[in-house]
């Protein structure tokens, strides 16, 4: 059984890793050709991301967009999740549903909706519209982690604080916030990483004025191959792995993904 399991894990692991191994391989090619196994060794393509103005600008654009839109997503999700937890208001679940919808529907739909919206209101192409678009598109992630976080708070803690003289505000500051902090951080991390990688919404809203890294790669793909694309892919993979690794290190990843606490 364990041998069979191990074999199955290895096969799935190979399937998942193979394309990435090849990409990592071509990213260290010495010459600008698509070849694997790599011919020669060079990290210059990684250097390109930071030294070449076009790639660097794209990286900065991506990081700025991801950092600010994840923050916006958090600012939308936190009061909503808090309200749903604090009050009895079944009708307000409609907003929870709205918050989950963009991420559940095919992304083209949200992208197209936002495109028609920005075009109609006349803001099409402005950089800040991408922040709002991504903020809405990824609000699902902090919303889900925060809802989980709130439901994990033992209500008697809040009641205990109240009996000791804490009003709503004080309870939020001294009890609720410290307890949901891990969920807040992971919600931000999820939204950040996904925004960094997002293509279609960014492309449809600001694709002609701002070049994020995924857009840059796609454009580069159409004009031919450069190993920098591979280097960026590896870089993004590493960023994601580091971020999720940190979430796992300082939080309870299985629990965040829906497993019940203190199991195994």
């Amino acid at each position, binding site marked *: *059984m364990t041998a069979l399991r191990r074999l*199955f*894990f290895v096969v799935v692991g190979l*399937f*998942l890793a193979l*394309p*990435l191994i090849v*990409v990592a391989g*071509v990213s260290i090619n010495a010459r600008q*050709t*698509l*070849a*694997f196994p790599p011919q020669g060794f060079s990290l210059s393509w990684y250097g390109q991301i930071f030294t070449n103005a076009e790639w660097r600008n794209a990286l900065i654009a991506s990081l700025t967009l991801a950092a600010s839109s994840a923050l916006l997503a958090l*600012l939308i*999700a936190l009061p*909503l999740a808090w309200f749903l937890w604090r*009050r*009895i*208001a079944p009708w307000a679940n409609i*907003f929870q549903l709205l*918050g989950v919808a963009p991420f559940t529907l095919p*992304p*083209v*739909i*949200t992208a*197209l*909706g*936002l*495109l*028609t*919206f920005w075009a*109609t209101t006349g803001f099409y192409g402005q950089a800040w519209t991408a922040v*709002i678009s991504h*903020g*809405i598109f990824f609000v699902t992630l902090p919303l889900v982690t925060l809802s989980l976080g709130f439901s994990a708070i033992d209500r008697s803690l809040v009641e205990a604080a109240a009996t000791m003289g804490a009003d709503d505000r004080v*309870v939020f500051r001294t009890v609720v916030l410290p307890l949901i902090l891990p969920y807040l951080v992971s919600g931000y991390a*999820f939204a950040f*990483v996904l925004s960094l990688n*997002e293509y*279609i919404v960014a492309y*449809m809203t600001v694709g002609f004025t701002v070049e994020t*890294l*995924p857009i840059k*790669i796609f454009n580069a*793909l159409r004009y031919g191959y450069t190993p920098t*694309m*591979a280097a*960026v*892919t590896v870089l993004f993979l590493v960023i*994601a*792995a580091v971020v999720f*690794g940190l979430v*796992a290190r300082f939080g309870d*990843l*299985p629990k965040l*993904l*829906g497993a*019940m606490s203190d*199991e*195994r």
Partner: protein
Amino acid sequence: MRREPPQRLAHYGPLFFPAGMLTVFFVVPFATMIAVSFFQRQQGGFYTPAFVFDNYARFLSLFFGKVLGFSLFLAVAVAVACVVIGIPFTYLLSRSARKIQIVWLVALLSILSLSEVMIGFAWSTLFSRTAGITNLFVWLGLMAQAQALTPSFGAVMTAMTYQAFPYTVLVLYPALVRLDPTLTEAARTLGASPVKAFLTVVVPALRNTILATLIMVFIFALGSYLLPQLLGRPQHWTLSVLITDQAIYQSNMPFAAAMAVFLVLVSLALVGLALYAGQQRQAK
């Protein structure tokens, strides 16, 4: 600190910003898109307000029927492939040590978040003639000469399964972790082999979860907009690709919007149908 319905205006305070943002930037755009789907297209990428069904009428063509049929077929195929591999995989994962679980979860999340552009690029590299997997086959002596494996249906299907697989595992994970381990243990004590116990106890116990997962992955696969374009031939293009194409390159917003509305309706209808079927089966 009683939990009760909001009474004063101040109690609604926290709701203002999220509700406003979601309404203005999700509900209104969605409505705008629906409106635009009835608009009249003008030359040069413009459109004027109107109420015409022309955009929807264009669906009634053989070409469109083929695209729709292919999109649904592809999404179903990907969903089935992912669930068939995903269930035993997630089951085994949920029974592994916590450390192993975490490593896999981090890896799956990283791949899930990887841009579709990058997944497309990675697979086109792996399927390319100069850097691809066929070089390995040649080296192993399985093949005489390296060759490109794209564009092809197999390439599209493989890459989309790759993209949807982490999603499948993460959707299945909570249900499988919570599955009572004594269930299979009981089956084992009654003489079932591990594989048999899995097939006769775990799979039936998860019937509704499996159905729900199939639907989720199906919708996820319907949303793939780049892989068919990067790895397939034009006949492998899906509805999502066509929508992008019409909106961006053909500048036909009304038609793109009509297709998007149609895509939403088709997804919702299929979800409804599947849920209904599930209920019927449960009622029996």
